[in-house]
């Protein structure tokens, strides 16, 4: 438990170093819904990918929020500003989140939008990238996924610029069991 707490602290600082923002939220549908509604306030449409990993009851109330679209058209996918997905793991050493590429569209919504909000359970944070592969190998699972480490960025035009083809902002909602 204490070890997991260390990983969480390490994850937060690494993610912030990679220019992501991290918000610690109690692991409950109500707390999550409240956190998300703050983010989506004033937005006409917000894309929500069906969760690949997190329990459905967590996301149920999110679907009721104003402006939420769960099955976007291509047009909506290519033009909506904010997209919400879950992440099936976090990596403490690198501050990365792992988002699945599946028919739930998390892999696409986390790409086309300008701001990506990712919901991550603190329990699923591991130490290093290799742990994800070890876990998957044990489970005989080779899910397509992407390690996302901060917003998309480039230094090709000279100075560092955030926000290229992928989102320019990455906000991670970290669900924790303890009241934070």
């Amino acid at each position, binding site marked *: 438990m204490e070890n997991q707490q260390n990983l969480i602290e390490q994850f937060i600082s690494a993610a912030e170093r990679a220019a992501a923002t991290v918000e610690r939220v109690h692991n409950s549908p109500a707390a999550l819904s409240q956190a998300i509604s703050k983010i989506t306030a004033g937005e006409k449409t917000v894309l929500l990918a069906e969760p690949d990993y997190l329990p459905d009851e967590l996301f149920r109330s999110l679907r009721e929020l104003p402006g939420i679209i769960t099955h976007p058209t*291509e047009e909506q*996918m290519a033009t909506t500003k904010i997209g919400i997905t879950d992440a099936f793991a976090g990596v403490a050493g690198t501050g990365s989140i792992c988002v699945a*590429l599946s028919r739930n569209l998390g892999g696409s919504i986390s790409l086309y939008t300008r701001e990506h909000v990712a919901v991550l359970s603190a329990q699923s944070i591991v130490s290093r990238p290799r742990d994800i592969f070890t876990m998957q190998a044990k489970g005989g699972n080779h899910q397509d996924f992407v*390690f996302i480490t901060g917003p*998309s960025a480039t230094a*090709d*035009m000279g100075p560092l*610029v955030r926000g*290229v083809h992928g989102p320019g902002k990455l906000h991670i909602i970290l669900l924790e069991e303890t009241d934070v």
Partner: protein
Amino acid sequence: MSEIEKEITPREVADKSAKEALQKAIRMALAIESDAVRLNTQTFNRNRYTAVAEIEDYEALKDRAREIKEYSIENNEKLLGRLRQVIEKRGGHFYPARTKEEACEYVKNVCLKHEAKLVVKAKSMTSEEIKLNHTLEEAGIEVAETDLAEFILQVSDEQPSHIVAPAIHRSRERISELFKEKFDTDQPLDTGEDLTKFARKILRQKFLTADVGISGANVISADTGTIVLVESEGNIRMVTQAPPVHIAIAGIEKVIPRREDLAVFIELLAPSATGQPLTSYTNIIDPPLDLPPFSFDGRPKKEREFHLVLVDNGRSNMRKDPELKQALYCVRCSACLNVCPVFQTVGGHAFGGETYSGGIGGAWEAGTGTLENAGFSELCTGCSRCIPQCPVKIDIPWLNTVLRNRLNHPDGKKAPAQKRFFGNFASSARIASLFTPVSNRVSNFSVSRSLLEHFFGVDRRRELQNFAGQTLTKRFKKANIQASEAKSSAVLFADVYTNYQNPDIGLITAKVMAKLGVEITLSDVLPEGRASQSQGLIDIARKRAQQTARYLEKMIDAGKPVIVTEPSVLALFRLDYRNLLNDAALFQKLKKMSYDPIEYILHLFTENGMDWKKCFSPQKLSQQKLFIHGHCQQKTIGAFDATVTLFRQLGFDVVTSSVECCGMAGSFGYKKQFYEVSKKVGEDLLDQIGQADEADDERLVLAGGISCREQIRSELNRPVYHPMEVLEKIIG
């Protein structure tokens, strides 16, 4: 646009098979590209040091990566067979292309079958190597490069100058200038943000309407057909997700056995490349993706289709080549480019060919093209700084020595005069020292300098080091140095540089050692092979190495460790002899028992429990502030830290240089064709010395290498000392 930009374009000097191309490219690079390359590579380089220091098991991880790559190249056919089955089983297409023509033809036909008008493409060095864009464009297909650096190169019509950041040679200002000239737009193009926004808008439209997406692959696992694609911009995610057809192109060397081991490379790649723990996106995919098909422009949706094209194009021959084979382990991280002092100065348009650049680039250009294409490998000075940085432990300087050797003897002819001149330093030095001071006067006399320049390419702007009439051998004999209460004995290696040009340093070392109770035997003067190796004269170097190693082995067996004052010679024993001696046990013995003099002193202190306070009196020296420059190879073999440790223990205020190399690098800086490059490399070191000096208080400058001292002295006009010269002043 400057004059030189109009005169020489990078494209026309990309092919280095003509000797003049390299010279022109160097001139162009120094004038136009050097500042941007230096800023960007040095940033990557600093960040890499920080990032790899954070990896707990960095050395073990590198060993593992090397082991996997060795296995993979050894078992390449088997892995490709396995991979083919896996890809085809899940409905993908697998195409092994023997040649670049086959690869291009296949990709073109896939595109034509889909009636593709627009292809979006992610960065892929392999696709550059096979000149894929050319084939597709000939067929009337538009190719949009979507990596922003490649986007720039498509606009400027230049070849990549770096394998990870292909437009690293262009500053923001030069990108603005280019875009303003080439695009008719009202959008602002003045900041990084402006330029990115502009390109993003153009490319977003391309992604949404493309028929086919083409990517490379960083690593592929044979057991699951999983492809790793590392990026930051999101263009690879777009290329692999937006269009219905995805074609991945990679060299056959990218396949490893197990998916689980992909992590080894993922954990090493980004830290080694850009110095990040991971880049923004690391894609782990088994295409065709299980995503619903998209259509952003109203056309009918198509089922997703995937093709994996694995290109041989010379790689099978590289596998069979005992020397070039190790180049196939390369994971294209670019650490060897970023750490390279010459690359930092000229970039990949000079230090590179049509596709591949830097130290590792020569072997790749030779392997996938012709030997002559690797002519730019002459720019490798053998400084060795890339060796500890390579995540798969490729001995890059050795690859370049091998290429040089092969280029020296294209049709079994004799090596060029310049190579023979520098490669036979020992005999030239012996003869010159017999005739000093006449030979010194003659060798620096203007007529003889122009003859030297004409026949041997020795740049006349370099002051030639004087040859001592009284060699170390003669002076050592005369001095009759006796150790007081001898506690141990050692051999001082009389290398040719110390013997003929710096006998003082050898003598001083012997005296200091004697005072510390070490009885010194001076070795015979043996050409140890450094000079011939650096000219690519491998056969001669091997002979010399054998002879010297056998000679020293007898001393070592008699209980005498070997002390070497010239770091490039010490590095030869501890690093290069693994290639030159066909005797691993002998190499290990010499490696273990050869010391830098200060390393040996520290060893004595710990071994004999000596108290340095009783041995040295630092207060004898009025200047207590030092600037110490570590010799490149001395740092690589780990023999430099001892110097810093000792002087700090003695209470000196020590500042060290943070440059990789002084730029002289033995004969490199003396060669007419590289004089300017060498001087330019040295600028950072001179700047650092200047910064470390206080207004009215110049630090004592120390440098262990004879070339480093010459490089600094030639510009600063102040004495530069070997560390042993300072120790001699404060001993007792």
